[in-house]
């Protein structure tokens, strides 16, 4: 019988939630690495028992943990993330140059078919790769050394590389997203990169349609149609039908097009999910109503999904890596909040229930569908 395992990163540790295919009752294990921030927990696609966790602390820096038994036991692997050569500078908040400095890993992206291969997205923005299960890491410096790099500027959360998409048909093609540089893509495995932000418009930067400088919050794709990308930008929900070469807005009738998380249905490539947030100065849902919005048309037309979600006095946020789907039928959809709830829907979003309610603020949620 199939089951689902949720990998939850929080401000004070990691949690592993498991349920059978009905997805009604959840067993909660954790906290692992209690007291440490866990930005992301990600399972290998090639070997689901292998899981990586990015454990980090303002006091003690970055630790990378790995489990080879589905999250029951963990061991630290390599945490040496060195920028290649002279790291150079990017722009600081005040517009002055600031040396690149490694702070933490925001996102881990395991290979689709190699259990030892995993990419890591870092703050300050850089892409690292491990071919030995996380023991050692090598930067792909072509990204950071892109000519626009000295003009990249951090978003409020830092200059973070938070999205890594590897094309399932050609692993040399990758897309990454950085707050607040935007999207960059490579066709040669990461040696050379090009900005992929045409069509984005950000009113808050000096040149609203600049080549780089956009605060992209998250980008997702469906594995069966990897050239179609969906983006939650700082403001605006966007879509690209040509793998980032151009973008158009699909915010449509959303009550707010600000937000962080975005997800795509496991079996319906045109069905996508967002959680509207009121504004960048008020990081909570409009009207205090926690609503997931679903579009079955790839954006543009949206329906509110509210059953089982609080519809009054709710002032949580849903962060960029805190939404996931499983691949059961019907598709399960999950998201975590800064209030410590992880909500689960076993019917593609029609109804919701908390899988767990009082965790620390949730930073990330990943779903593993197990045979």
């Amino acid at each position: 019988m199939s089951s689902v395992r949720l990998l939850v990163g929080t401000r004070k540790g990691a949690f592993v939630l498991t349920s059978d295919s009905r997805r009604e009752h959840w067993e909660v294990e954790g906290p692992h690495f209690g007291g440490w921030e866990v930005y992301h927990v990600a399972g290998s696609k090639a070997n689901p028992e292998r899981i990586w966790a990015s454990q980090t602390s303002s006091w003690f820096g970055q630790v990378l943990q790995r489990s080879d038994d589905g999250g029951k036991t963990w061991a630290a692997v390599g945490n040496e993330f060195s920028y290649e050569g002279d790291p150079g500078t990017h722009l600081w908040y005040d517009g002055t140059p600031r040396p690149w400095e490694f702070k933490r890993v925001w996102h881990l992206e395991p290979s689709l078919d190699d259990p030892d291969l995993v990419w890591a997205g870092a703050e300050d923005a850089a892409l690292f790769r491990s071919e030995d299960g996380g023991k050692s890491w090598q930067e792909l410096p072509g990204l950071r050394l892109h000519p626009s790099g000295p003009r990249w500027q951090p978003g409020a959360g830092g200059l973070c590389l938070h999205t890594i998409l590897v094309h399932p048909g050609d692993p040399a093609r990758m897309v990454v997203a950085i707050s607040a540089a935007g999207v960059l893509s490579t066709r040669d495995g990461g040696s050379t990169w090009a900005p992929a932000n045409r069509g984005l418009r950000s009113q808050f930067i000096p040149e609203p349609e600049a080549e780089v400088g956009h605060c992209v919050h998250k980008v997702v794709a469906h594995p069966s149609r990897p050239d179609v990308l969906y983006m939650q930008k700082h403001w605006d929900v966007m879509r690209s039908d040509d793998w980032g070469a151009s973008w158009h807005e699909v915010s449509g009738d959303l009550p707010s097009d600000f937000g962080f998380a975005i997800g795509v249905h496991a079996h319906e490539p045109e069905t996508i999910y967002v959680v509207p947030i009121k504004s960048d100065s008020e990081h909570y849902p409009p009207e205090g109503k926690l609503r997931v919005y679903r579009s079955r048309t790839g954006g543009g037309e949206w329906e509110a999904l509210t059953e089982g979600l609080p519809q009054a006095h709710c002032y949580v946020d849903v962060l960029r890596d805190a939404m996931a789907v499983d691949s059961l039928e019907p598709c399960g959809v999950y998201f975590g909040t800064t209030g410590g709830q992880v909500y689960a829907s076993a019917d593609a979003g029609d109804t919701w229930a908390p899988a767990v309610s009082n965790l620390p603020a949730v930073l990330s949620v990943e779903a593993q569908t197990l045979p």
Partner: protein
Amino acid sequence: MTPAGAGAAGGTSALTARVRVRLPAQLQKLAQLPAEIVVAVDGAVTQRAVIDALEREHPVLGGTVRDRATDKRRPFVRFFAGESDLSNAPPDEPLPAAVCEGREPFVVVGAIAGG
């Protein structure tokens, strides 16, 4: 209490000094170590040499008390020995004789910060 084996030799001797190191709770848990351990330091007993030994003997602690790229102490970590705050002392300056000789531990503290 002095851990067994601490301070067999000290100062700038070419012999190996056995230096006591006290760790904050977070690092004890991370490395699965007791509150106080002993590390072997060859040559001059300095901050750098003690942390080198700590990272060599317990690789999981690599990068946790000082930045891997710059070797600078992490901003929210402090170093003490006896009554002295050594956090801003030069990393290659010899540590007090009491640390070198195992009478006092080299103390790593996670600063209390954040309210």
